[in-house]
Structures are given as C-alpha cells and as structure tokens.
C-alpha cells in the first residue's frame, strides 16, 4: 500500500506492506536509521519518534497508521545547523554513551519541554521512565534534559509542527520498570 506522511517537515510517500511497523518503514524504507529497534514489546523506547508532537514507540505503530500524520525523528531535531538544546544538553552533560537509546530519549525530552519548559527532576524521571538506557544510569540524561530546559528557546512550538503544546503528553509505560 502507499503511505503518505510528513517526516521532519518534508512529505514522503512510499510503498509498504500493510503489516510494516513504523520503525522498519522509517529505517528500511526511508533510510532514517537514527530511530533504533531495541525490543519487540514496547518496553525499551529506542524507537521513540514524535507523531504529531507526541512521543510514540514506533515499533508499536504500523506505518499505515502514520499515514497523513507528521513524524519527527532525531534527524529532524537540528535546525539550520543549530542543534536542538536537548541535543546540546546531551553533549554537555554526558547524557549518552553508546548512543543507542539517545534518539528516543531526546525526542521524549523535546516533547516534555514543549509541554513543560521547566520540569522538575522528578518530572523528567517520569517522562523518560518508559525508555531504557543501559549505559548512563540515567543521572546524566536527567542532567542533560535539565540543561536543555535551562538553555532552551522560549517558543519551542515552532520546532514541533503539529503539536499543540497542551496536547503533548508523555506516556510512561512501566512494564520495563
């Protein structure tokens, strides 16, 4: 079937089997390999992308379900050669090691900050609690997101097309916890 969607602000159209998972569609068909595949049970969050501004585990969603929607992946975080404050924060605070969970973590962080520009550390913990990192012990991820909050732009809605700020919800899925 033909799937039409917007990815990182650009329209994309491609053929895919109806059963194709969004994560595989992004990775194998659109060759956007920054989105990772880490489990099959929606526990790890390596595959998180933003769908209309909301973090979604793209292994849990069929590509067909994304038809007509706006997808944002890690490749779309940098704008005009400037890193998103979240990306910069991960560098500044050593918020990543192997880098495998990083794209998903950063996109969840982006959605969190769009909804809540000044989160507490506990709010950050809850926001990323549905995603697993095996390297950092989370402390520096929390610090990285805090850094982004402290250095972020005022109007993040501009960088999150389609996402109404008050609609953005992070949805921790605690099975992995």
């Amino acid at each position, binding site marked *: 079937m033909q799937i039409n969607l917007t990815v990182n602000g650009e329209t994309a159209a491609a053929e895919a089997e109806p059963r194709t998972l969004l994560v595989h569609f992004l990775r194998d068909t659109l060759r956007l390999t920054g989105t990772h595949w880490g489990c099959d049970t929606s*526990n790890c969050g390596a595959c998180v992308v933003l769908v209309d501004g909301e973090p979604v585990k793209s292994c849990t969603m069929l590509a067909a379900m994304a038809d007509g929607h706006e997808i944002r992946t890690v490749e779309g975080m940098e704008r005009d050669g400037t890193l998103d404050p979240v990306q910069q924060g991960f560098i500044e605070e050593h918020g990543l090691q192997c880098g495998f969970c990083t794209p998903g973590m950063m996109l969840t962080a982006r959605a969190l900050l769009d909804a809540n520009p000044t989160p507490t550390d506990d709010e950050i913990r809850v926001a990323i609690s549905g995603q697993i990192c*095996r*390297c950092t*012990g989370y402390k520096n991820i929390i610090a990285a997101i805090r850094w982004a909050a402290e250095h972020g732009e005022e109007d993040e809605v501009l960088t999150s097309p389609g996402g109404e700020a008050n609609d953005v919800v992070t949805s921790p899925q605690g099975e992995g916890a």
Partner: protein
Amino acid sequence: MAIADERPIGFGRMKRKEDPRFVRGQGTYVDDVTLPGMLHGAALRSPLAHARIASIDTSAALQHPKVRAVITGKDLEGLGLAWMPTLSADTQAVLATDKVRFQGQEVAFVVADDRYAARDALELIDVEYEPLPVVSDARRALDAGAPVIRDDKEGKADNHIFDWEAGDEAETDRVFDDADVVVVTQEIPFQRVHPCPLETCGAVADFDKVTGKLRLWCTTQAPHAHRTLYAIVAGLPEHKIQVIAPDIGGGFGNKVPIYPGYVCAIVGSILTGKPVKWMEDRTENLTSTGFARDYLMRGRIAADRDGRIRALRVDVLADHGAFNATAQPTKYPAGFFHIFTGSYDLEAAYCTVKGVYTNKAPGGVAYRCSFRVTEAAYLVERMVDLLADELGMDPAELRLQNFIRAEQFPYTTKTGWTYDSGDYHATMREAMRIAGYDELRREQAEKRARGEYMGIGVSFFTETVGAGPRATMDIAGLGMADGAELRVHPTGKAVLRISVKTQGQGHETTFAQIVAEELGIPPEDVEVVHGDTDQTPFGLGTYGSRSTPVSGAATAMVSRKIRDKSRLIAAAALEVSPDDLEWEKGRFFVKGDPEKGQTIQEIALASHGTLTLPEGVEGHLDAVAVYDPPNLTYPYGAYICVVDVDAGTGEIKLRRFIAVDDCGVRINPMVVEGQIHGGLAEGVGTALMQHIAFDEQGNCLSGSLMDYLVPSSMEVPDWELGETVTPSPHHPIGAKGVGESANVGSPPAVVNAVVDALEPFGVRHVDMPVTPARVWEAIQTGTTESPQ
C-alpha cells in the same frame, strides 16, 4: 599555553568526540549497514529444551517466492561447520544436527529478500522433535540417571565439565579447626542474568567470490580475536577476512562470543553470493546469547570473637548451560573467581568450582566485569556482613578492622593475586563521610523504634582487571597483549589505531587524551581508529575492563616511542645534543635556553621534510607498540546503599547510593563518572530485578523485556560519587580501568542494605533478585534459606 587553561591538553573533563554524530542519529550500528543486493537472514529456534531431531522438512520454505536459501545442520555438516569451538575449548552447535539442547537453540537459517519474508519462511519449516528429559537445575545435573546432554562428545556419560580449585585446602581447614573461631556458613546463589545491551546482536556478511574476501560487520567487542577464530573455524585465509565492528549499542560482555547467527550469515553470503544481514530480536538475544553468573556458592567464613577474619572457603556449582561457552582466559575455567578473598588480609583461603552442563543457553560471559569477579565480590561481601551480624559488629567497622593495610601493598593474596596498590581505609572512610554514616545509623535506630524499616548496606570490592600477562593469559591460544599504532602527519595531526573497541565507553575521546597527555597534541587533533581489523593492529578487544589497562598502556607506550624519536629529530633541527633537550608537554627545548625549542608539530614537519636526520633515524613520525601487561590492575571502591523497605508490601525504595571508586589516575573524569553511573544501575538491576529464570521443562521465563526487568529511571537514585586516587605503579599512566567496577561492587551493597533493613525480623539473607515478593516472604518467615 593558552589552550591548556581552557581545556587541558591531555587528561581532564572533555566533551566526547563521539557525541556529535550520535545526537544527530548518525551513528552507524550494524543494523544501519545496507549493501546493494543485501538479503536478510533469520534463525529457526528450538521450542524445546532437550529433544532429538527426527526430521527437518524445508521444502515449503524453499518454495516461498522471496526465499533464497535455507540452511540446516546437515548442510553445515557438509561444510564442516555444524559445530564451532567455544572460547572455553568446548564445542557448540552452529545449527543443531542430532538434537537440541536448550530452548532457543538454532535449528535452521533462512535467507530471504527482506526481514519480514525471512521470518515468514521460518513458519514453513517443519521440524519433528522427540522430546527428552530435561536438566533445568544444576543441582540435579550430576544425579545418577540424569540425561546426558552432551552425548555428541565421545564417551561422555555425565554432565560434568570441570573441577577447579585455588588456595590451600589443608591450611584453610586448619584455621577453621582452630579453637577460638566463629564460623558462618551460607548458601549464596548468584542468579543467571543477561547483560541485555540495548542493541541486540547481529551481523552483515559480504563474501566476494571473485576476490575471496569476506567482510563482516558485526556486533563484536573483540574484532581481531573473532577474525582469527573465523579463519581457524571456517578455513578462510585470515588476510581475506575483514571484521568491522561499527558503532556498538552497548556490549557488557554479551558481544564477546561468536554466535551461530554470525556464522550462518557468513555461510548464507557464501551460498547466495549476496550480502546477508542477520539481526536478532530481543527474545533471541535474551534466550540464546551469552548469559552471565549462574553460580551456586556455599561460603564459610572463620573469625575470632574480636572480629579478626581468618579464613574463607567457597564451594561453587557453576551452571554453564548446554555448551561451555564461557568467555575467559584459557587457563582459568572459573575465570578470576579466586579473587573471592576480596579486600581482606586473611590467613587462609580455598575454593572449589565444579562446572556442569544443563539444558539452558550456553555461556557464561563476563557481564560488565572481569571474569567471575562479580560473583566473587558478592560472595565475600555477603559473608562479611553475615559475620558482622553473628559478631554483633558494625559491618563498616568489621571491614575497616580487616582490610589489607596501605603499607602491605603490593599484597599477594592466599590465592595468588598480587594487588598492585591501594589505601582501602581511606576510601572506606571517604564513603562513610559522604554518606554521613553515623548519622544514618542514628536515623535507622530512631526509625526502628517507630517500626520503620530502613537499611544501610556497605560493600567494598577489589577487582582484578586488564587481562593480562601473555605468559599466563590467553583466549583460545591468543595472548592477551594489545597493539597500538600512531602516525603523526606532517602538520602535526595524528591518527591512533587501536585494537580495542568502544561500545559506548568513549575510546575515541579518552585514547586521544592519552596521546595528548604524552605528546601535547590537542585531543581534537588525534583521530582514533578502531573496530576494523584491516585498519588496526592486533589485540584481544574490550571486555574485563582491559581497554585502559592494556590498550591504554599501549597507547602511552607508542606515544613515548614517538616522543623519543622526536627528541632525536628536534636535536638535529636545533643542532644540539639530544641530552641537552628537555621535554615539556608538546615541546622539546634546550636546557638553560627555554626560548630555543621545537614543538611536536614542528618536529612532525621536520621528520617528513628535508632535514638531514641523524644516523639510524628513519624519516616520518610513526610508531607501533605492543603492550604485554606485567600484572593486572586492581581498582577498588567503597559503596554504601540506603534503602527503605515497606514491611507490608515488601517494596524496596532505593533512597541513596554512595560510590567512592579508586581506579587510579582518571583520564577523563566525566567519562569515568558516566561509567560508574551505568555500572551502578546495572548492579542495582542485578540485585533487585534481573533474572533469567527457567521452569522444570527448561522453558525460559525471561524471554522479553516484559519478563526480564531492567532498571528504568524510576528505580535508580541520584548517584552520589566520590573518589580517591591511588595510581597503579606498573601502568604507564597509573590508570586501572573502571568500566565495570560499579557493576561488581553494587549488588552486595543493595542486598546488604535490604537484609540490614529486615534485621528486626531475624532475616539474615535474601537471594537476588531481591523482589518485593521475596522480601515479603522473608519477613513472614525470617528465612535464611535460599529458595529454588
């Protein structure tokens, strides 16, 4: 130098060179590799833990329009590849021929046009199994009449693998028999766990029939060792094998062994003439690749009434699964378990380890630790706490009373390790200071009086890492020395090529910092090349915290070779004697005339230029070094964990965790701290939730992240770190390695804290993982026994 003020040339906090690509999603992991015409492989796995294979019918799968090949064990037999050697001189089935020996074992391999079609075709393969009795409990493996798992081995009539011992049994018995002693005995299992890196294992094999060259992109922590083993196993000429470990999404020991999937991808590529990608899913990762631990330990500790610890004995039953695929130096079937004497000055020690086969996945690997050091640290640190309880002493005070003293280093243990350096008392006291230990004990007493259950757990560990001296340590016959090659280009920029491979540790940054420290070339001017066997010198790879102790040392030594040569070139350029030159970071200058000198960049240009070089000095500024460590290094640390236990539900709240590590000189403290944070989280996970469990039929009960729980951000506290620095005397830069320390030291701190919290209930021990159910049960029964 101005630059040094802002960012020191060499050691110090420096943002990672890896990060710009990772935060843009531009890392290249194995599953990101796509080659023209690439096919996809998938493995059919056994649903049974033990069964004879009566027949395999692949005809329907072969008729699938997208299937290019179906490989079975019989096909591999024809190629001599049905079995492969393990890292422990055993054999492992690549694809099962006679029978399956664990649930999840590879039975057939499909190569198809895309990954979905490959999986579809697995459903079309019809395998007829004849079930056999299962050995799922190591304690039953040696029973008379137990089914023999490895009947492929000629004459094998039981499930015994090895017996191994260390220390002096007679002397240990003598001390135990001595009159004035307290003896505590406890069974302490260390459950089977899995490293569970976020990226699963996989490979892309590309065999070129014309050139005969095999390129293999692979999730491997040890690309060079793998290349040599492929050459030996498959009979491919080694110079035609290129193993490329691209970005690796975490390893933790899981990516040390060679797995059947890698071999099948290679065979698939040879058979089809196309590149073949195989990427396992999470269930395959958890159920078939290298597990860790699974040690049933029985400890006995002897001490005087005044608290002097005198002797320790441990007897271990080790579950190695269906194939003995333990990754460790060849001469050490139980790894370095004989460091179980820990950080204490004992009179005698002795251990036995008995390895057995069971119908479980093969292993075990050194999960974020040097070989079996985590098991050893857990054993001794639990035993010391049990002793403290028996003696009515504070566990921190008991440790301080028995530590090896600073002036005793280098200290040779009763099992033969020579610890290089340490000041354990200082590190322990620093942890107690940060924790506010006395205040915590006061708080605990007040809470107990109110019926609240707070626990304070102490642990102190000593690791033996950086394997190792090649005279005594090898893996599959390959000595554990590592090479480094450094080229300084004419403009003074450098390329360092190393044998080890980062899986997130940050080698591209920290190894550049070592060169920078030694030569004064800014780290950003040093490119670190690794993970490609055609591009890098031979070495055994990254595991057992060996990168900094071995390859880091090689990097320092090759830099010093460059520096020595630079002196001769600078002397020629300045027309002075080499002896008249003095080195400051980045520059030689004339003694007494500091203005007159040559920077390393000027020397690099001169070495490539027209300068007349001294007799015997070759042009250019390149060098190679191979580092054979004279000893291992012995990082250590003091950890204190504070928990609150809800006696009604058994729920454990990890309130604080204090970790003071001494890993010698810290190259990049930011990276060191990150390594410690990560190790703590994994250690806490091991203590509280990680468990690869089986039922009696050998069904794996932990085959997904819904069942195999690992910590999220909600289960870990805000780590509180401290440090002491005691350099290793034999390492060129005094560093000891740190990537695994926290995973070794933290499980006993957590368990000791929980047991401490439950002391009012008479609880002396709770097995890992310390789940709320186990805590609740312990509260009800005051149990000291280990549940099965």
